[in-house]
């Protein structure tokens, strides 16, 4: 990471002590740039009218609404969606909250009491391609993806070939290892691929889940007559 191209970051967090802590940590990092902060959902949404940033840190429990709304709003804005990686910050990162965040479009989450170094490391990893995934979430993803068609969310160029099956199998293995507590480095070693590849697999899994949840939403909307074909 060069200083010339720092990671721009937005923080949406209602608790001042956390907001201060996060702001301080980010500001201290040479390769990061704090683009803005907000402590309410409304303020967060207002920030979306500015330039897109690289990483958004968002708390789900905001005083005037859920952080999920902010995540969904980003998914609707192409310029933001293209560039911004969303990271949910939470005290416990429990399964129910994380899964809904991933479905809404988040691609990572971190636990609030992480040590500052680990905190920055995770932001960097997320920006580079992916963030660590908790075993419980991996297990959940494994179960959810098993019910989806392997080609879902895969680029048209790839879909329809046998690679799709292989790809799906690799994703499954990554999730299986993650569910059993292996780190990305260990998984990369076990599968004989690079860490970057492992991260891309995880990311693809996230995307599949998002696509699927969108498909379901669209289906639901059609069913209710909200959207025309």
């Amino acid at each position, binding site marked *: 990471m060069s200083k010339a191209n720092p990671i721009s970051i937005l923080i949406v967090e209602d608790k001042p002590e956390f907001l201060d802590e996060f702001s301080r940590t980010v500001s201290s990092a040479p390769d990061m740039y704090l683009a803005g902060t907000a402590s309410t959902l409304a303020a967060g949404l207002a920030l979306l009218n500015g330039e897109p940033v690289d990483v958004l840190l968002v708390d789900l429990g905001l005083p005037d609404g859920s952080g999920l709304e902010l995540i969904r709003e980003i998914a609707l804005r192409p310029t933001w969606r293209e560039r911004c990686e969303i990271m949910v910050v939470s005290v416990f990162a429990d399964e129910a909250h994380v899964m809904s965040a991933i479905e809404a479009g988040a691609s990572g989450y971190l636990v609030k009491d992480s040590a500052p170094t680990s905190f920055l490391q995770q932001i960097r990893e997320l920006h580079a391609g992916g963030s660590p995934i908790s*075993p419980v979430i991996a*297990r959940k993803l494994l179960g959810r993806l098993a019910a989806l068609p392997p080609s879902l969310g895969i680029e048209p160029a790839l879909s329809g070939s046998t690679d799709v099956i292989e790809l799906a199998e690799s994703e499954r293995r990554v999730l299986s290892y993650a569910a059993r*507590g292996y780190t990305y480095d260990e998984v990369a070693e076990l599968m004989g691929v690079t860490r970057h590849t492992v991260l891309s697999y995880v990311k693809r899994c996230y995307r599949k889940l998002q696509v699927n949840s969108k498909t379901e939403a669209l289906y639901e909307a059609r069913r209710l007559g909200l959207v025309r074909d």
Partner: protein
Amino acid sequence: MKLAAWVWSATDDPGIRALRLAALLIGLPFLLTFLFFWYRAFDTPAPLPVAGVERWVEPLAETRFNTSGFTSLVKQIPDFSQARWETVTLPDAVSAPPILATESAPLARVWIRTRYTLPAGQPVPARSAVYVTRIIGGAWSVWVNGKLVDANLEDWRMQWNVPLHVKLPAEDLVAGSVLTIDIAFPIRQSEGYAFGSMYVGDANATTRLFEMRSLWQNILPKATVLIILLLGLISLHYGLGEGQDRVYLRLAFAAIVWSIGNSLYFGDFTDDRVALWFGALNDSATAWMACTLSLFAIDFDRERWPRLELGLVAYAVLVTVITLPLWNWGVNGLVFQYYTNVVLTSAVLSFFTWRAFKQDSHEFKVIMVAVCSLPLMALHTVYFVSAQRSPDSIEIYPYSAFIVFGAFLYVMQRRYLNTRQSLIELNASLDQRLKQRETELAEQHRKLMGIEQERIVQQERQRIMRDMHDGIGTALMSSLTLAEHGELTSARTAAILRESLDELKLVIDSLEPIDEDIATLLASLRYRFGERIEAAGLKIVWDMAELPPLPWLDPSNALQVLRIVQEAFANIIKHARATEIMISARPTGLDTDQPGVMVRITDNGIGFDLNSARRGRGLDNLRRRAADLNADIAIDSTPGRGTRIALQLRVELPS
């Protein structure tokens, strides 16, 4: 039509409906047969009964009353000059005087004479015949113009039921001539005879009359005997198979006895010896008939009459013995039997008919009325045979069995329908009870489920409360006390708070959905604390195989597992001075009946003396927690050579 409609609706009872159908099915062919013959009878003009008949009883001196005697007698031309003819009206019946006959009673031959005029100038029928409805007497002979035309010695003892039909010689059929027709038959003077109506004329017409009479007098009674025998055999078969209801066996015996008693319609029993024994058999059959029929009827009584039944059987045996030809009591035995039969049968039947009406049992009444009809018809036969009834009428006794069998079938069908009805009702009530029980069970189940649900929620709530209390609560409380006394440094405070947060995370992780997968449970521990362990300078070597699900791994047990491993970690971090910690979990004994999971936590630290009291308490804690999970824990350590903890978990917990 109105009457038919009334009968139809009056018989519209479930018990009678089938019987009505049966009556229709049987009655219809009879009706059609009757109509057929009726129609054919009108084909040619029906001959009128002959009038102007004369009779002469020719006394016989020495002819014996047996086959050889009659063989010569039928051909013997009488001395007509001695004849004293008297005018009689047909049918001519001379009833037997009410005295006991003897073998030595004088014989006579009855001559019945008529004249048949063939009118001059009219065409003569191609065939002419003489037809007599019935002759109750001996072997008859027919004479035309003094010449013997035909004689019947066949079965002469039983010639009381066969109509006479003889063709007139063709050469005598000349227009304008008068034929003298004589019919002769020998009799015992003491016994009487009967001679039915006589017809002479076109053979086509007389044949029809003859056939019609044969049908009712011979063919149908024969058929009846066979049908009753068949029904008896069916009843016997059913009775033997059924075993419970004696009534079928009793009916079977009655039917068989009845068939034997009526077997005189079959075969030629003219031979003297055979006739003697057959007659005896036939005669005792009447007593047996009275006996078996009474036994059958008694069976419908509510009470049992074993002594009376025994007496009836004894009576039948006695009669059989008495009427045996061995004693040479001849006809006296027979007469004795008839009288006793009448007395006994009327007594028994009257008594039980009275009982039937007293008990007001529908079945019993029907059976008794039907059974009573039998002796009445038998009485008709006795009158008939003893020539006190017109010989032109038909013997109805053979048909009486239909009444008894019809009544029995009716009763059986009623019983069957009643049984079926009660079965249907029973099934319906069983169904209803089953449904009711199912509803109750469902309700009970629902309640139990509710209670169980509540119990689980309650347990879970208590567990979380306890965990909060023991863990975070206690830690916070003690630190609060310290803080209030100003004895808490900021480093100590941070440590206590971190400990509390860790404890809280542990509780939350134990509540996460891990699908009974202990690998994910252990993984979440690494996810939580791995970074910190590595920050403490320990390298984690992670080896987690795919493991079988552990059905008992609910949040409560998951927390125990987490605590065991966390304590092990804490011990290593605090005391071991290790550089590497290896955590592995592998399935064990998958092919055996006790599959399990082996979790190993190994460090390369300084180890410790297993007997040292200082470490003892921590180890006891681990052992206690393992015991709670019904797991085996092995802790092995040597000073300077690290520590190895092996936790053997089972897939199935013994209940």
